[in-house]
C-alpha cells in the first residue's frame, strides 16, 4: 500500500513537472517579470499589481486585437540565476511580450534569453546603463537611464554651489553604476569627489563611515542606493552633526525613507522617476489602484502601468501578435502618451527624454523641489 502510494506520488510529481509551463491555449499572453519574493518583493509586487491593473482596464475596453490579455508572472527574486529561470519560464510559456524588470542585476542576464527568442520586452524600472549594451534590440526602456539621473543630480549640486562631493553606494550593480557615473561626471566638470564609499547591505551601523565622511568635509553627500539603508545613513549623518546637503537616488524614493529617518530627513533631495504623486495624469490611476489593491502605489507603479499600456498600443499598431512586428512597432512609437508622459525611443532603445524630477523632503513628505 505504502509502496503504491509512493509510486503514485512520484509519478504524479513527475507528470506535474512536465505539465508545468506547457502552453495553454489562451488569449494574448503577456509575461510580467518582477521580483515577487526576496528582498525587493515589495516593489516587485507593486509593479505586478500596476501591470495587472492596466491589463484589466484594456480587457474591459475590448482587449487587444479582439483578444483578452492574460498575464503570467515570472519571479526573478532580484537574483540573476532566478531571473534566468523566470525568463525561460515565460519564453517557454510562449508569451507574446514581457513587461517588467525591476532589479538591473536580475534583468541583465535575461536580455539574452528574450533576445534569442525575439520576445518584445518593455523594461519599466531597471535602469543600469549596463542594460543598454546587453540589449539585443528587442527590449525598450521606458524609464530614464542612469545618465539622465546623473545629469539631474549634478545640475542640483552645481546650483547649490557644492564643490566637494561624497558619493556612497551599496555594492550592487545598480547603485555602483550610478555612483561611478556621478563620480566621472563630477570630476570631469572640474570638481572634487572627496569620498567614494560603500555600505554593506543589511548593516545597520554606519557611524564609522559617517565619521570618515564628515572628516572629509563634503559640501554634499549623494546616496545612490535604496531607501532602507539610505534612511539609516541619513539619520546617522545628521546625528553626527553633518549639516550640508544630502541627496538620494531614485532607489530611495519611498515614503519609508522619511518614516525611518524621521526629522533627520528634512531637506533631503531625491531624484526620481515620475511617480503617481507628481503626475497630474495619474489621478485616475492612483484612485483605481487604491480601490483595486487597497494600498498606495509605490515608486514604479506608474511606469509599470505605462509599460503594459505601451505594449498593448504597440501590438495594436503592429496589427498582429507577430513578435518582430511588435518590436518594430515599439521602436516606432511616437504618439503614445502614458500617465508619466510621452514615450519615444532613442536609437539605443532608451527613453528619448529625461523624465527625472527633483523632490525634497518637507514635513515628512516628498514634494516637488522648486
Amino acid at each position, binding site marked *: 500500500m505504502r509502496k503504491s502510494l509512493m509510486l503514485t506520488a512520484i509519478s504524479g510529481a513527475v507528470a506535474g513537472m512536465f505539465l508545468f509551463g506547457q502552453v495553454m491555449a489562451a488569449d494574448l499572453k503577456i509575461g510580467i517579470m518582477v521580483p515577487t519574493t526576496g*528582498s525587493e*518583493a*515589495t516593489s516587485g509586487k507593486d509593479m505586478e499589481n500596476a501591470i495587472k491593473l492596466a491589463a484589466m482596464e484594456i480587457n474591459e475596453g475590448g482587449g487587444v486585437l479582439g483578444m483578452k490579455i492574460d498575464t503570467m508572472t515570472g519571479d526573478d527574486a532580484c537574483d540573476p540565476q532566478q531571473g534566468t529561470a523566470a525568463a525561460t519560464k515565460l519564453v517557454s510559456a510562449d508569451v507574446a511580450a514581457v513587461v517588467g524588470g525591476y532589479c538591473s542585476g536580475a534583468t541583465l542576464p535575461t536580455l539574452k534569453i528574450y533576445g534569442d527568442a525575439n520576445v518584445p520586452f518593455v523594461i519599466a524600472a531597471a535602469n543600469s546603463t549596463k542594460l543598454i549594451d546587453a540589449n539585443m534590440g528587442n527590449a525598450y526602456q521606458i524609464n530614464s537611464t542612469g545618465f539622465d539621473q546623473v545629469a539631474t543630480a549634478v545640475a542640483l549640486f552645481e546650483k547649490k554651489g557644492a564643490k566637494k562631493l561624497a558619493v556612497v553606494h551599496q555594492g550592487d550593480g545598480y547603485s555602483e553604476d550610478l555612483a561611478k557615473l556621478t563620480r566621472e561626471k563630477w570630476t570631469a566638470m572640474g570638481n572634487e569627489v572627496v569620498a567614494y564609499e560603500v555600505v554593506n547591505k*543589511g548593516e545597520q551601523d554606519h557611524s*564609522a563611515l559617517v565619521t570618515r565622511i564628515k572628516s572629509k568635509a563634503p559640501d554634499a553627500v549623494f546616496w545612490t542606493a535604496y531607501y532602507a539603508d539610505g534612511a539609516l545613513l541619513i539619520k546617522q549623518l545628521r546625528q553626527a552633526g553633518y549639516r550640508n546637503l544630502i541627496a538620494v537616488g531614485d532607489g530611495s524614493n519611498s515614503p*519609508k525613507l522619511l518614516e525611518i529617518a524621521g526629522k533627520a530627513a528634512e531637506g533631503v533631495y531625491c531624484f526620481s522617476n515620475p511617480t503617481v504623486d507628481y503626475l497630474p495624469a495619474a489621478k485616475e490611476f492612483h484612485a483605481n489602484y487604491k480601490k483595486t489593491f487597497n494600498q498606495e502605489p509605490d515608486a514604479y507603479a506608474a511606469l509599470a502601468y505605462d509599460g503594459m499600456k505601451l505594449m498593448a498600443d504597440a501590438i495594436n499598431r503592429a496589427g498582429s501578435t507577430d513578435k518582430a512586428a511588435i518590436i518594430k512597432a515599439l521602436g516606432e512609437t511616437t504618439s503614445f502618451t502614458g500617465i508619466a508622459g510621452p514615450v519615444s525611443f532613442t536609437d539605443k532603445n532608451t527613453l528619448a527624454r529625461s523624465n527625472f524630477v527633483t523632490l525634497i523632503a518637507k514635513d515628512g513628505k516628498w514634494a516637488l523641489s522648486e
Partner: protein
Amino acid sequence: MSIQDILLQQLANGLILGSFYALVALGYTMVYGIIKLLNFAHGDLYMIGAFIGFLFLSVLSPLIGDSWVGILCSMVLSMIAVGLLGVLIQRIAYQPMLSAPRLSILITALAVSMILSNAVMAFTDGEYLAFSTDLGYEGLEFGNVFVTYTQMVLVGAAALLMTGLYLFVHRTMYGKAMRAIAIDQDACRLMGIHVNRIIALTFFIGTSLAASAGIMAGAYYGSIHFFMGFVIGLKAFTAAVIGGIGSIPGAMLGGLLLGLLESFGTQIPFIGTEWKDVFSFGILILLLVFKPTGILGRTEIERM
C-alpha cells in the same frame, strides 16, 4: 576635525557597535559552551526580538509613551517572549538532534534560521518597518567627539546586562550548573543536576540577550527588517570565535574588539571602505591561524 578627534570618535563608534556585537555573541557562546551547537538561528532571534519589541511598543505607547519608559517595558516583555521562543526552538528542533551527526544539527539550525526570517518576511511582506521612538539627538561633546545620550544609555544597558550575566554564571548555583554541564553532561546527570532544565535556561538567557540587543538596535537605528539578523549574526559569530567560543568574557571582549576593528578599519589610509570586511575577516583568519582557540579560549589537552 583633527586626526586625534577622528580616532577618538571612531573609538566611541566602535565601542557602541561592539556592545551590540557582544550582546549577541554572548548567546552564541553560551549555547555553544553548553551543547556545542553553533546556533545559526541566533541572529534571527535578535531580529524577532526587535519585531516583538516593536509590537509591544506599539501596544504600550498610547499608555506610557514611546520614550525611555516605553522602550524599557517593551524590552523586558520582548526578552521574556523571545527567551521562551528560544527554549521552544531548543526543545522542538535541537533536543532530538543531539545524538545525530554534528553537521545535521547545524543544518537544523540553518533551517530554523530560514523559518524564522521567512516567517517574519511573510508577515511583514518584506517591508522595512519604521521603529519610531521619541529619542532625541542631544548629547555631550567631549572636545570634538560627540556622543548622544541615547548612545550612552545603550552602552550602559549593554554593560549592565553583561555584568549581570557574568555574576549569574559565576555566583549562583544555576551558573555553576551551567559551567558543569559544559564540562561533562553525563557526570552532571549522575550528580542529580536537571540537565535539560539548565540547557533550557541557557537558551532562555542567551536568546533574551539577543532580543534585548535587537530591540535596542531597533530603537536606536530606527528601522527593523526581517533580514536584519543575518549580518549581525555573522558578526557576532565572528566575535564569539575571536574571543574564544564557549567563553563568556571572551564573547564580550571579542564583540568590543570586532566593533573597534571595524570602525578603525574605515580609517586605514589608501584602503577604501569597500575593503572593510576583507580587513576584519582577514584579521579573524590570521588570529585563528596563530591562536586557534581565540583570545580567551582554553586549549584542551586530549587524553589518549
